[in-house]
């Protein structure tokens, strides 16, 4: 049943690609139907616990089509379906035909194509077809990022995305080709005992790592997420990055891994989490901030996966299963709250036309719904109870704490990992207090912010649905445990079964109680204040009579203190003109945090390569006489070589 539903979903999305160009309503119906069918397929796998496998006689590129849906794939199918459906509804208003008559039809078609190809990526079981689906997914992503190609920044971001994506795909070509050479066919499947395949893990880590946005490989991510339309940013961040995670998880589960894999993945995860959130804190563009925050969350997922790899190589310790379950739950959680936050960001961008946080402020007044759901998303992404972000981080913590208590070698990876996870959590809190307060609180800093307007129902609906998911996953996490257990079982058969080493149900009840108490206390306090007396007055600024909106803290001044501790890597570029003399005129202090890895590492290398290439190019200038000289010189050199060889 699951299989038929999945195939129906992909067919429905394929039809939607065609319908998207001409009939928006039909497209929306087909896309939603596809998402519901995919969701049904995944739920079927979780409910029955049975893996679906289908080998058809249809040949594609010389290989038979082979599809497979197990617990792990189903987890990613759910994510793709939910965010794909929410974004489709959101786009109806956000990227409407009325505002973007040229690109809206194109956007619809590519959207369905993206969702369909991602469903294929997680369900095909043949290396060749995987690469095809992977490429289709990357290209759909490119056309979605560049929906608005008139802006140079968008074109540059799209180009960078395409280049980085293909650099990763080169690694994947190598990976799948070597795998096929060693196993004798493109068929994919569990080969856990074939130790010769272990070194291939590094190729997969590099190839999928680019897509996932692991720290030094994340260079394409901030620009693409910031410049893409917001519903595209949401699916890129919420789902497309997870395709990279899927690749790493899938092939570290099916194939053996080198002994160092757990250490490397944990280390990369810790670095990615900490540095990602440090960069996020320093950003002044809210979509860039969210993009860097995605880097952080990928780091958290990798921390869990690294713990699981360490546990697997150290005697299948049960704590690895907790860490893996936490990582998999974080895949969902991050998909839900990051899509929510990007939708909120899109709503703000839609209303004000600026991505600069320091030009906003006070938006809660005009946009109460957006402000509310953004605040909820901020609590979730900071990993605070009683929402979903806390649950997955808690599971990862439990796994890592057990690793420390085990007092074996993995403890030395787990101890720093725990501390760095806590640091990243505290920085995430600072980051999202900053983002929320700069955008929604205080007084409007500019006119566009003062004249903002709330988004309509088509945008509000998906945001509310995702907020509901964040709340539900926080309050009743035990409901999704079977799904996590089945994913863990698919990853490592020794961990199959529904046994639960963590009091997840208790945590759910505690969170539920907490949410109830918060609601009750807030209501009581509000009533008490109303009965006492509620007056309004200007903000108390220590006796200063005429505070202005420009005296508020800005994005840069908010981040200054904590970002200063990371200036060794953030490398902020400062412009400073101090006030001089007794009657100072203008004074300026500007601070911009560059994309350090891109601008100070990759670009200089690229420039050097170009310099060397153009120097070499001088040899080729079209003068025939010189070419004849080259030929003669070459022949003479060869002759000399032969002469020297033949001498005794």
């Amino acid at each position, binding site marked *: 049943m699951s299989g038929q539903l999945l195939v129906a979903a992909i067919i429905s999305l394929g039809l939607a690609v065609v319908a998207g160009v001409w009939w928006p309503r039909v497209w929306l119906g087909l896309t939603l139907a596809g998402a519901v069918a995919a969701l049904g397929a995944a739920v079927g796998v979780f409910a029955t616990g049975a893996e679906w496998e289908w080998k058809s006689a249809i040949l594609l590129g010389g290989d038979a089509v082979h599809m497979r849906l197990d617990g792990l794939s189903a987890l990613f199918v759910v994510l793709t379906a939910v965010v794909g459906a929410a974004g489709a509804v959101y786009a109806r208003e956000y990227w409407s035909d009325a505002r973007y008559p040229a690109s809206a039809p194109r956007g619809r078609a590519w959207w369905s194509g993206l969702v369909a190809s991602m469903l294929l990526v997680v369900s095909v079981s043949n290396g060749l077809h995987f690469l095809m689906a992977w490429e289709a997914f990357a290209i759909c992503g490119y056309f979605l990022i560049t929906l608005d190609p008139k802006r140079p920044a968008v074109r540059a971001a799209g180009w960078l995305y395409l280049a980085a994506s293909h650099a990763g795909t080169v690694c994947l070509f190598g990976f799948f080709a070597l795998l096929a050479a060693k196993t004798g066919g493109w068929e994919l499947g569990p080969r856990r005992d074939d130790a010769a395949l272990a070194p291939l893990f590094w190729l997969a880590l590099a190839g999928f790592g680019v897509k996932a946005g692991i720290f030094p490989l994340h260079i394409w991510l901030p620009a693409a997420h910031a410049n893409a339309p917001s519903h595209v940013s949401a699916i890129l961040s919420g789902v497309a990055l997870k395709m990279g995670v899927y690749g790493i998880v899938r092939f570290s589960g099916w194939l053996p891994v080198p002994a160092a894999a757990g250490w490397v993945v944990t280390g990369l995860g810790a670095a990615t989490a900490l540095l990602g959130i440090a960069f996020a804190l320093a950003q002044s563009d809210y979509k860039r901030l969210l993009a860097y925050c995605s880097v952080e969350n990928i780091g958290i997922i990798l921390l869990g996966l690294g713990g699981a790899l360490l546990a697997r190589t150290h005697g299948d310790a049960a704590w690895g299963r907790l860490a893996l379950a936490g990582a998999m739950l974080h895949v969902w959680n991050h998909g839900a709250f990051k899509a929510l936050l990007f939708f909120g960001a899109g709503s703000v961008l839609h209303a004000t036309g600026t991505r600069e946080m320091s030009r906003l*402020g006070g938006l809660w*007044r005009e946009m109460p719904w957006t402000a509310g759901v953004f*605040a909820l998303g*901020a609590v979730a992404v*900071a*990993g*605070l*109870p009683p929402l979903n972000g*806390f649950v997955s981080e*808690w599971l990862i*913590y*439990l796994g890592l*704490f057990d690793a*420390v*208590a085990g*007092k074996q070698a993995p403890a030395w990876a787990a101890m720093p990992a*725990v501390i760095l996870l*806590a640091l990243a*959590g*505290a920085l995430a*809190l*600072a980051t*999202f*207090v900053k983002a929320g*307060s700069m955008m929604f*609180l*205080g*007084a409007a800093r500019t006119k566009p912010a003062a004249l903002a307007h709330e988004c309509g129902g088509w945008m509000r609906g998906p945001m509310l649905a995702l907020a509901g998911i964040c709340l539900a996953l926080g309050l009743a996490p035990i409901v999704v445990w079977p799904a996590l257990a089945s994913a863990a079982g698919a990853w490592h058969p020794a961990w199959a079964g529904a046994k639960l080493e*963590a*009091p997840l149900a*208790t*945590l759910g009840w*505690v969170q539920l109680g*907490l949410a109830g*108490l*918060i609601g009750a*206390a*807030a*209501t009581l*306090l*509000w009533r008490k*204040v109303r009965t*006492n*007396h*509620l*007056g*309004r*007055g*200007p*903000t*108390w*600024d*220590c006796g200063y009579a005429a*505070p202005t*909106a420009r005296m*508020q*803290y800005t994005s840069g001044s*908010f981040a200054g*203190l*904590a970002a200063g501790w990371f200036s060794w890597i953030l490398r902020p570029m400062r412009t400073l003109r101090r006030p001089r003399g007794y009657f100072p005129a203008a004074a300026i202090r500007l601070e911009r945090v560059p994309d350090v890895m891109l601008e100070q590492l990759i670009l200089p290398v690229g420039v050097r390569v170009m310099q060397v290439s153009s120097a070499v190019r001088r040899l080729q200038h079209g003068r025939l006489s010189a070419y004849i000289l080259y030929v003669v010189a070459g022949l003479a050199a060869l002759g000399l070589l032969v002469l020297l060889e033949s001498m005794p």
Partner: protein
Amino acid sequence: MNSILDLILRLDCWLLLAPLLPGIINKVKAWVAGRRGPPVLQLYYDLARLWKKGVVMSTLASPAFVVLPAVTWVAVLGAAMLLPLGPLGAGLSFRGDALLLLYLLALGRFCTAWAAMETGSAFEGMGTVREVSYAVLAEAAMIAAVLSLSVQSGSISLAAMLAPAMGASAALLAAGLFIVLLAENCRVPFDDPATHLELTMIHEVMVLDHSGPPLAVILHGAAMKLLLFTVLLVQAVLPMAHLKPLLAAAVLAGGVLAVTVAVGLVESLLARFAFRRVPLLLTTAFLLCLFALLVAWKGGLP
């Protein structure tokens, strides 16, 4: 029936006794300075008075400004319920509750910071930035402390973690946790709770615009947080599991009193540090907790 009695007793301890601590600290400070000082029960009078007052809210603030203090208060109370209370044990104990406690305190911080930013005041922005930034270092110290307790006892549940003696690392852990206590509860040398109107405050400046019942809730929550950190510190260092209930309660009360007096003495004898030295002091706390962790690693349960 018994559990209801237990709950009532526990709530009494946390809700009714907490405002005593700031009173004791102030009394100690007054004695050291040779003054009579305000009565020990001053905070109770303040709370009662504030509860009856009206509220003036900034024109810029949303209704959340009034209700967020309630969320902070619930978060601190929830964290307190997880903490064992000497012979009473924990109100609720499960594997991993130590992490919930840390993150509940973080939730409280988030809400306080958010409410402070509602007003659009530069002063409150300043306090918020300091609070959320220094919290990064305090959080590192706290998680290292929790890790060392967990290594010592082989458990992640507060009731089991706080039961055994810390052994050799107790002194290191006590010093580290004491510094974190001072930082998280905005005491000298990090902050000066005696004044508001300075550029140099952290927490006090974040609540400048609050008034009436919300301010009462904030003050009560802050007192509970102070009690929470004190109880945590005392139980982390002193083994109480094998004592008789009454004796254990007496030891706990004595320990809390001693820590409170120590806070008062620190406040009387030290001046507030310059801000550039605050991160250094917090890093010291982190290193102390880290060394406690390493000592526990070498000497804990096999």
